[in-house]
């Protein structure tokens, strides 16, 4: 049997050994709850004590709260929120209050011991302060069912273990704090990135109707919010009106024109009224929050004012399903984002105002121009109509006086007829360019040729040169032909003997350049500046002066440009730029008839048809006459053929009963001509095809 001294030494060695194991076991545990639980378990199992518990001081420093307790007793006391006053009568109170170890060897006799119903068998208790440096962070209680269970040496051994435990607790707290800092830093970085994203994605959108819905969606996606909405203050300044809202809740509120009073008790009302961010972390408890039936899950809400300079434009609301979802950092990043958004909204509003002002200006200018043109028109029409009324009055007088002179009557009728004709001509010129604009790919040389034909330019007067690499233009060919015809008629009226048209790719990319030069009288310098205006003419009162106005209008409608240079007595040149057509896509010509007769001059268009059809394996023949019509499945006739008269061709086909195989193709459509050809029995009269796709459609 060992001596008491030897037994004491052995016990001390066991304790030290156990203490070292506790310290080693717990030192690496970084979760504070796990650390404390393991500590009390190890103390009781290794040392064979009845109970161990760890108290930690709360934030006020006034209470020591039980954070871990051994066994059922410990669990029961933690569940009951067991805590003791620091500096109070209890042993823990004394240990934490005086920062020194307390021992009660028979607790029944120790005044400071609070008789604990959960630990009825305790006969010895030790309370050891847990301190780091000068700071007490809590206390450790160790209890035994033996009386006088602890010696001074035990106190020292366990105190050294308690000191290590205190350091471990401190470490774990620091670790948790670091983790929290890290988490916050990470969250902040994420928020800043999201704010930056919102800023970047919204800065370039200048249409409010696009900007606001996109912003609320980007915000909800980037931050993972439950809901985001943008309110803008209306013109009265009294209401913040919802202009965009995320998801179905947003749509439902937009549908009922959801609005909140500026300066009212809602969060948006407060944010817009006071021009400062508002946060409600549990909106159930926040008075200013408007309980919104569309957003039942909102637990945190932030309302951020949208401010540019001193002007409040509105506010953004962001809502989360988590309680306390926002902190001070979030306000800063989200407010930064709201500031970017406010600038974007302001830009969009400024642009809208600018557009409105521009439209207003345009309306004013259009009105001025119309007024000027109308004045000219009224003056002109008045001048043309006056002879009609005065002549009629004279004729009536003559009739009532029965002084009827046949020559005078004939002369009067000529006067009326001429005036009426001029008025009708104005209608023709004004109506033409007002037509619907249907641009398509077109051979500009072929259109010019057709225009010259219809304007009555003799083949001996016209020279047409098209550079071989000239691309197709994008134009309504009926209108373009009308524009060219007006220029040809002007040249003929200026007594031109030669009209040269040269067509080539423009030096300006994307355009074909057309130069139309005549050797006529030229434009008198006094009216050169006004040459494009309506009712301006060099040709005396028998002209309306609308030809060049119509031409300018048509070329502008085609997104082209036209300029003029002129030398009086030497001639005039019109330079026209017409946009190039996009590359035509391939066509399926497999279903077109296998034998096609083309009746046309040997020109660019006839060659295009021939090449397109033969490359599709079809047989085509170009003729100046109806020769070969019998064997052809389909006959295409160019309306402006010069080698043979069109009416002769159509009569021949009709006579041979083959008119129904024939289609007349026209660069420019015209009612009277179309009616005439149809009356002569042709199958159809259509716009001339200039691409393989159009050709396939015409021949289908």
């Amino acid at each position, binding site marked *: 049997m060992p001596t008491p001294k030897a037994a004491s030494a052995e016990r001390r060695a066991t304790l030290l050994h156990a203490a070292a194991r506790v310290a080693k076991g717990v030192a690496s545990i970084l979760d504070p709850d796990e650390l404390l639980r393991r500590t009390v378990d190890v103390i009781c199992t290794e040392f064979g004590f009845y109970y161990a518990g760890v108290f930690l001081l709360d934030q006020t420093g006034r209470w020591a709260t039980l954070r871990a307790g051994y066994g059922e007793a410990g669990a029961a006391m933690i569940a009951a929120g067991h805590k003791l006053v620091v500096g109070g009568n209890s042993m823990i109170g004394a240990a934490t209050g005086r920062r020194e170890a307390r021992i009660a060897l028979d607790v029944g006799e120790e005044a400071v011991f609070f008789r604990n119903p959960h630990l009825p068998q305790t006969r010895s208790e030790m309370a050891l302060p847990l301190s780091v440096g000068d700071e007490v962070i809590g206390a450790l209680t160790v209890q035994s069912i033996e009386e006088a269970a602890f010696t001074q040496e035990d106190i020292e051994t366990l105190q050294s273990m308690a000191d290590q435990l205190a350091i471990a607790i401190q470490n774990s707290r620091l670790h948790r704090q670091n983790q929290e800092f890290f988490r916050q830093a990470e969250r902040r970085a994420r928020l800043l990135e999201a704010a930056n994203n919102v800023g970047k994605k919204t800065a370039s959108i200048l249409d409010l109707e696009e900007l606001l819905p996109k912003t609320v969606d980007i915000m909800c996606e980037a931050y993972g919010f439950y809901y985001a909405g943008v309110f803008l203050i209306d013109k009265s300044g009294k209401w913040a009106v919802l202009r965009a809202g995320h998801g179905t809740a947003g749509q439902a509120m937009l549908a009922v024109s959801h609005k909140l009073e500026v300066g009212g008790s809602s969060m948006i009302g407060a944010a817009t009224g006071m021009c400062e961010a508002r946060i409600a972390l549990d909106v159930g408890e926040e008075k200013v929050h408007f309980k919104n039936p569309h957003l039942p899950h909102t637990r945190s809400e932030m309302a951020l004012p949208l401010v540019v300079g001193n002007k409040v434009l509105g506010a953004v609301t962001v809502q989360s399903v988590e309680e306390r979802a926002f902190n001070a950092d979030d306000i800063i990043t989200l407010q930064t984002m709201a500031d970017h958004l406010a600038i974007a909204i302001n830009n969009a509003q400024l642009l809208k105002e600018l557009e409105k002002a521009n439209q207003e200006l345009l309306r004013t200018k259009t009105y001025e121009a119309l007024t000027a043109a109308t004045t000219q028109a009224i003056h002109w029409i008045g001048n043309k109509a006056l002879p009609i009324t005065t002549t009629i009055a004279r004729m009536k007088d003559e009739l009532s006086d029965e002084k009827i002179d046949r020559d005078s009557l004939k002369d009067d009728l000529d006067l009326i007829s001429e005036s009426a004709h001029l008025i009708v001509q104005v209608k023709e010129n004004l109506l033409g360019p007002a037509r619907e604009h249907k641009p398509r790919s077109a051979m500009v040389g072929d259109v010019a040729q057709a225009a010259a034909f219809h304007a009555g330019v003799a083949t001996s007067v016209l020279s047409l040169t098209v550079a071989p690499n000239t691309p197709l233009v994008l134009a309504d060919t009926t209108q373009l032909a009308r524009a060219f015809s007006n220029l040809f008629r002007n040249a003929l009226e200026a007594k031109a003997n030669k009209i040269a048209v040269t067509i080539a790719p423009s030096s300006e990319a994307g355009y074909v350049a057309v130069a139309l030069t005549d050797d006529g009288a030229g434009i008198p310098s006094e009216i050169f500046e006004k040459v494009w205006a309506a009712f301006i003419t060099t040709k005396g009162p028998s002209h309306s002066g609308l030809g060049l106005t119509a031409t300018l209008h048509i070329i502008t409608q085609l997104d082209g440009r036209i300029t003029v240079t002129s030398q009086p007595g030497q001639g005039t040149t019109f330079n026209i730029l017409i946009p190039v057509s996009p590359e035509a896509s391939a066509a399926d010509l497999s279903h077109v008839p296998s034998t096609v007769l083309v009746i046309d001059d040997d020109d660019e268009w006839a060659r295009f048809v021939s090449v397109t059809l033969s490359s599709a394996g079809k047989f085509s023949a170009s003729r100046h006459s109806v020769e070969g019509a019998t064997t052809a499945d389909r006959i295409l006739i160019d309306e402006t053929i010069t080698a043979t008269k069109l009416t002769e061709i159509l009569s021949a086909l009709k006579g041979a009963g083959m008119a129904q195989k024939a289609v007349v193709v026209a660069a420019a459509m015209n*009612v009277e001509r179309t*009616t005439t050809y*149809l009356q002569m029995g042709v199958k159809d009269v259509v716009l001339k095809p200039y691409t393989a796709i159009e050709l396939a459609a015409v021949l289908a």
Partner: protein
Amino acid sequence: MPAKAKILLVDDEPLIRRSMQKTLVRAGYTVEAAEDCTSGLKTFEASHTTAAPFNMALLDINMPNFDGTEASGAGLELLSRLLQVRPDLPVIMLSAYDEVNKSKDAIARGARNYCVKGREQNLLTMIEEILASTPSN
């Protein structure tokens, strides 16, 4: 050519009705005028089974349709209705606008010609020729 051919003239513009009627009457035709599709059809049907039916019709294109509302192309509907009653009736369409598609539509429905008001020339000659080439006249 029958000396006293009877022509139906339908146009909503009173001045055009008046001047056209005068021109045709002076040329020896009998003319009855109507101002819209409904009254035009009624006038035509009223005389169709009599001893003196219409030999020709001149129809405006844009005028009140059968519902009484102004419609672009109302005259085309009247054209078809008249030809239902009498398939070989020669009809000339008149329009203030030169619309190629309308002219094609008119010819396809059976109109003998389509004239743009103000641009029509030798209307009387055209009427004469069309009447002469219509066998039942």
